């Protein structure tokens, strides 16, 4: 798999995912799409990600389901075992908490527990993210949970191109993939529309901006904030390299470590709460592998340790942003 994109007109991330689903369904009639409200009579998904699919590919392959996430993921596991390529939607990541058994005990483990007799090539789409005043049960990031579970792959695009390329890769992957969509990015992230051969390999990050003084690793919407911070820092003469992880499990150790080795300073940013988040794993690996070679301690930036708060000033303060990232970078620059 190579990372290629042919650019044409600009699309949103929502449109890119929609296109990825449509192209995959057109190319492989084993691809199925289902979840709450996903078919056209129900609007093609709450934010329209699956719009047009049921009309084009039929009610057999594109189905709105009852509100029953265990049944949804169970149907995904079973249809994957039966040779299909299900793409199931859990509307918001917080709702995956009612389906964790199916994801963790079954989808993730069946290949191993059956000694490789079976595989579970499913993709689960989940939206999430704070910033839209939806309170404490609609915006959590649990990528750290999924990454901790052997057998799952986890991806978190920040651009339409990557969303397209990763979705196609997830669907073609022989193993279960968690595809995380930031609810703000779906409309906000715009970019060229990739052609149907575009794939982004799972496990490969990308340098979004080159720099030499420090490395900022981010994923999902935090890439936007990291780039904002990099811009502010540039004005101050600090050159930040920004890496978009794109995949969390597996994550691109080589890219992160070589960048951090180059700059000597590493920061990791995520919207999940900082404590026990994925930044901890990356910091632990980097501190280990680059022991004695870094100019400053690895710095982590994450959400505050609380539920997503409702009130706007609290919600804003809860989420990491360009300023907090830039502040962290400034402090790091005082080292070494």
């Amino acid at each position, binding site marked *: 798999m190579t990372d290629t994109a042919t650019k044409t007109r600009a699309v949103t991330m929502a449109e890119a995912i929609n296109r990825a689903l449509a192209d995959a369904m057109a190319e492989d009639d084993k691809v199925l799409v289902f979840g*709450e*409200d996903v078919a056209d*009579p*129900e*609007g093609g998904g*709450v934010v329209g990600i699956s719009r047009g699919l049921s009309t084009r590919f039929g009610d057999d392959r594109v189905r*709105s*389901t*009852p*509100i*029953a*996430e*265990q049944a949804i993921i169970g149907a995904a596991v079973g249809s994957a075992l039966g040779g299909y390529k299900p793409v199931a939607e859990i509307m918001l990541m*917080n*709702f995956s*908490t*009612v389906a964790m058994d199916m994801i963790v005990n079954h989808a993730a483990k069946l290949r191993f527990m059956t000694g490789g007799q079976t595989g579970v090539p499913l993709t689960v789409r989940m939206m999430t993210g704070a910033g*839209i*005043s*939806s*309170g*404490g*049960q*609609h915006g959590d990031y649990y990528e750290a949970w999924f990454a901790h579970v052997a057998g799952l792959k986890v991806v978190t695009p920040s651009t339409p191109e990557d969303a397209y390329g990763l979705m196609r890769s997830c669907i073609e992957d022989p193993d279960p993939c968690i595809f995380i969509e930031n609810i703000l990015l779906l409309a906000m992230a715009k970019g060229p529309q990739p052609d149907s051969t575009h794939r982004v390999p799972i496990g490969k990050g990308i340098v979004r901006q080159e720099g030499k003084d420090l490395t900022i690793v981010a994923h999902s919407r935090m890439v936007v904030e990291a780039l904002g911070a990099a811009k502010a820092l540039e004005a101050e003469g600090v050159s930040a390299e920004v890496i978009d992880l794109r995949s969390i499990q597996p994550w691109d150790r080589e890219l992160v470590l070589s960048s951090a080795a180059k700059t000597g300073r590493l920061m990791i940013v995520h919207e999940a*709460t*900082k*404590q026990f988040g994925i930044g901890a794993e990356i910091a632990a690996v980097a501190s280990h592998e680059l022991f004695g070679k870094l100019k400053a301690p690895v*710095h*982590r*930036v*994450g959400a*505050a*340790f*609380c*539920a997503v*708060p*409702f*009130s*706007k*000033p*609290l919600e804003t*303060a*809860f989420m990491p942003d360009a300023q*907090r990232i830039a502040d*962290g970078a400034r402090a790091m620059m005082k080292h070494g």
Partner: protein
Amino acid sequence: MSNRYTPDAGTQVDIYRRMALLKANDERTRKLFTTGRLVSPYYSYRGQEVIPSAISAVLTDEDYVCTIYRGIHDMLAKGMSLKSLWAEVAGRVDGSCKGKGGPMHLTSLEKGVMVTTGIVGSSMPIANGLAWTAKLAGNGRVAVANFGDGASNIGAFHEAINLAAVWKLPVIFVCQNNLYGEHTTYEKTTAAKQIADRAVGYSIPGVRVDGNDPLEMYAAAAEAVARARAGEGPTLIEAMTFRFFGHVFGDDDSYMDKEQKKAAMAADPVPRFRAKLIAEGIVDEATLAAMEAAIEAEIDEAVEFALASPLPDVSELRHDVYADPSVIAEDSYA
């Protein structure tokens, strides 16, 4: 419908008062959202006013209510303070949850509104726990769990009702069946001919009632509450209703049957009950008009109070996570 549970004239007017409050409050809320003075997802309950108004008429302040994102009608009918509700919806420090919960997670301890959940189905298992404490304490309280028709297909529904039935808990499971779960119709998702039928699987009474008919709703609620208080266990009430403004306010309604929606709105239960009360001579128009004016004034005051209340300080992120904020490492906020 048994005559044993017919509300007297005073109770009927009281039910209407709650309905009028709910209707006016929803109208005001939509107005403030439309003008952009408030911003957040809003799940209008307009059209579903009868259900909690009738139920609340048979509850005391000590009885418990657990409800959902579409639940402000349940709270207001139960008596929650308009001021602390509005301040919470506006995310202010005087909100019932200091602005931390918002419209989807309101709580009003004084009125027994214990949990408002944004997770489909989750009001039910928690209501069981509250009902259990009532039973243990022998204080005669009951717990009402509100949820939608869509929620009747999720696992928590099944687990909760079964447990309540085997433990004979004083819970009333109130399914507000508005025919849609988000954009999907009842028929597409629900194998039961009626949700009330599912009660058979738990050997408890299950009734489908016209949730827009205050007398029918009252009778069903009164019977269920009486059973619960008498130690006879839970009841499943399926209250048929309709939501006038879609799933979340601002939805387009392309997924809806237009005729069905038109008919439902034409049969708006609030003016209908109002007319009935007057026609039957239970109350006169002037009394109701005065009542409605008082409600508007009360809402005016609450909105004003809410918008004058300060926004919370960011230091609040550190509080109420644990009882003792010092357990959280300082750099957890870096």
